[in-house]
């Protein structure tokens, strides 16, 4: 699966470019998850989000999630994951995940699985900057 893409970047994510890099003639469905900065958390106004990454390990873990997906859904054609770090404004994309496959169901399932797993295993942390303070978002300790 050497044509899959796993990247960490400080720059804005080129979503359309990622999709185009992954597109093959055998693909009939492209499902894309785009995580964007929401303007509030439980009603509290968010100003920016700061993302910090353990970059080399994050790329390894993203690749591992991709390997799990290819094993579990052999029909999947390509997977692309780009996670951004640094300071992000409202509506900017923090992570984009693209999955292509011949048919749609597998692409939906695999893409949803990818973001769920990424949030469990990929070493990236975010801090919410509110108008009146800041707070690290608490992740779940794996059980």
């Amino acid at each position: 699966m050497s044509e899959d893409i796993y990247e960490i970047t400080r720059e804005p994510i080129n979503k359309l470019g990622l999709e185009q890099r992954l597109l093959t003639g055998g693909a009939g469905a492209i499902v894309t998850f785009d995580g964007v900065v929401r303007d509030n958390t439980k009603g509290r106004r968010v100003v920016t989000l700061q993302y910090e990454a353990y970059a080399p390990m994050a790329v390894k873990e993203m690749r591992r999630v991709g390997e799990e997906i290819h094993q579990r859904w052999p029909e999947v054609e390509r997977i692309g994951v780009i996670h951004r770090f640094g300071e992000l404004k409202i509506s900017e994309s923090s992570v984009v995940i693209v999955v292509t496959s011949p048919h749609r169901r597998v692409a939906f399932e695999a893409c949803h699985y990818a973001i769920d797993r990424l949030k469990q295993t990929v070493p990236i942390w975010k801090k919410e900057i509110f108008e009146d303070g800041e707070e690290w978002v608490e992740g779940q300790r794996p059980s």
Partner: protein
Amino acid sequence: MSDNAVNITVLLFGACREAAGTGELRCTLSSPATAADAWSALKQRIPALAQFERTALVAVNEEHAGLAHPVQDGDTVAIFPPVSGG
């Protein structure tokens, strides 16, 4: 450097980095050493990290690891809160 010195690089991320006031330091342990030994040494040096003892995760050489995981000379040990990317 004695024969049984285990020199490691410690990386800290997120709230751990912030509490420690640094993201990277060197540490020397005695062989044989585990991730738990790295944690002990670290807490002694930076008491502010003790608050993360029950929640923090450990990676050795960029792989998730348990506290019993062996640590060898030249290894990189990362300590961080549960991940919250996405």
